[in-house]
């Protein structure tokens, strides 16, 4: 079926998007694993964006407690297979889309075929068994996959096994090598979840899918993105290459020496900042007509530094000597600037 360009005008209009990327979306084949809290909004946005080949795999049926977040379903769908209902509804709303709903669990037996037929996988599953299977089979078949998962008021999103922005490719197993024992990590049924949070995670996942298909922007591969809805904070944790490939002793030495250089440079910058602090303090002392040298304040602070030095495993007399030198220079600077040592 020809693409109705008018329908997608507002995204084609975007600088850097265009008809070419719309065609890529139309030709792409996405496997959606799970059509629950993440899968429902993800499916709606994939379909609306013009992804025309979508396979949904989910073995579950619709329950009343799903409806507050699984926004494709309503009370008329209760007890029916999610994959089937979802596929039917999307076909009605978007007749140009080839959407297949499979009432199956993604398992070793069907994973290779289903993932093999897709260009990429959007994992919206709610269990580790499925997620590790997606990771392993995607690695074997060389397919990228987009991860998303929620925990109470937080979610995580990332991209694995793409290799466009990060080399070598990053896998879920690089972060979490072993599947957690059953029951240790809570799922939504145990911990609870608000639909909008799952929707927010799903929207980020779909954006990653669109970027991967179109080859736009920077993917989240190599970054575990966390979001806390209660504090409004996004947190990026980047995968250091070291956890993927172990450094040799020589490589470690080079890295540690570079760190040492950086550390000493930071000490200089901290001393420069200290000088500025002393300058500002001096101005205020002058305004308040206080003495430049206030022996009890200094002795107090020097004693604190010596205690901290001991705690940090540093030689306290060396620290005392060092700070006396720095302090002496500070006093000289202040005297020079304000000329009122008393």
């Amino acid at each position: 079926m020809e693409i109705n360009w008018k329908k997608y005008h507002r995204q084609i209009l975007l600088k850097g998007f265009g008809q070419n990327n719309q065609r890529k979306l139309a030709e792409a084949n996405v496997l959606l694993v799970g059509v629950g809290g993440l899968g429902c909004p993800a499916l709606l946005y994939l379909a609306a964006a013009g992804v025309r080949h979508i396979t949904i795999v989910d073995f579950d049926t619709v329950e009343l407690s799903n409806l507050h977040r699984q926004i494709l379903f309503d009370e008329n769908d209760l007890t029916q297979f999610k994959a089937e209902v979802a596929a039917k509804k999307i076909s009605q709303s978007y007749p140009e889309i080839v959407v297949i709903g499979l009432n199956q669990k993604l398992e070793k037996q069907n994973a290779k075929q289903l993932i093999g037929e897709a260009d990429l996988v959007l994992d919206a599953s709610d269990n580790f068994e499925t997620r590790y299977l997606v990771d392993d089979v995607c690695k074997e078949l060389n397919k990228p996959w987009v991860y998303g998962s929620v925990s109470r008021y937080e979610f995580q999103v990332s991209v694995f096994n793409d290799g466009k922005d990060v080399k070598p490719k990053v896998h879920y197993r690089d972060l979490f090598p072993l599947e957690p024992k059953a029951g240790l990590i809570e799922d939504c049924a145990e911990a609870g979840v608000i639909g909008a949070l799952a929707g927010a995670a799903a929207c980020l996942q779909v954006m990653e899918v669109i970027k991967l298909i179109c080859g736009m922007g920077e993917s989240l591969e190599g970054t575990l993105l966390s979001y806390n809805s209660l504090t409004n904070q996004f947190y990026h944790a980047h995968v250091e290459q070291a956890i993927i490939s172990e450094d040799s002793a020589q490589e470690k030495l080079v890295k540690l020496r570079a760190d040492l250089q950086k550390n000493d440079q930071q000490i200089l910058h901290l001393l420069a900042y200290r000088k500025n602090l002393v300058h500002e303090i001096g101005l205020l002392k002058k305004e308040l007509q206080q003495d430049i040298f206030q022996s009890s304040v200094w002795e107090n602070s020097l004693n604190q530094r010596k205690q901290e030095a001991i705690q940090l495993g540093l030689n306290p007399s060396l620290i005392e000597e060092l700070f006396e030198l720095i302090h002496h220079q500070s006093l000289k600077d202040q005297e020079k600037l304000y000329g009122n040592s008393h």
Partner: protein
Amino acid sequence: MIVTIRAFGQVAEITQKTTWEESRANTLKELKIILQQEYPALSEIPLVFSMNHQICAEDILLKPMAEIGIMPPFSGG
């Protein structure tokens, strides 16, 4: 070394706090052991550690004033 901890997901639920300061460890590994002794439930779940937003290996030295993220895997979908 003084570092600031940022706890995510179930880590924050186990420790009952999302952020706090720690000064008892010099390496990530020491920090992990100290926290696991204090909160035995942390030993049960896989954890990813980041220092200043870089996920890193456990033998790494803690940098002064670094922010240490502790992330468990999430399950819900």
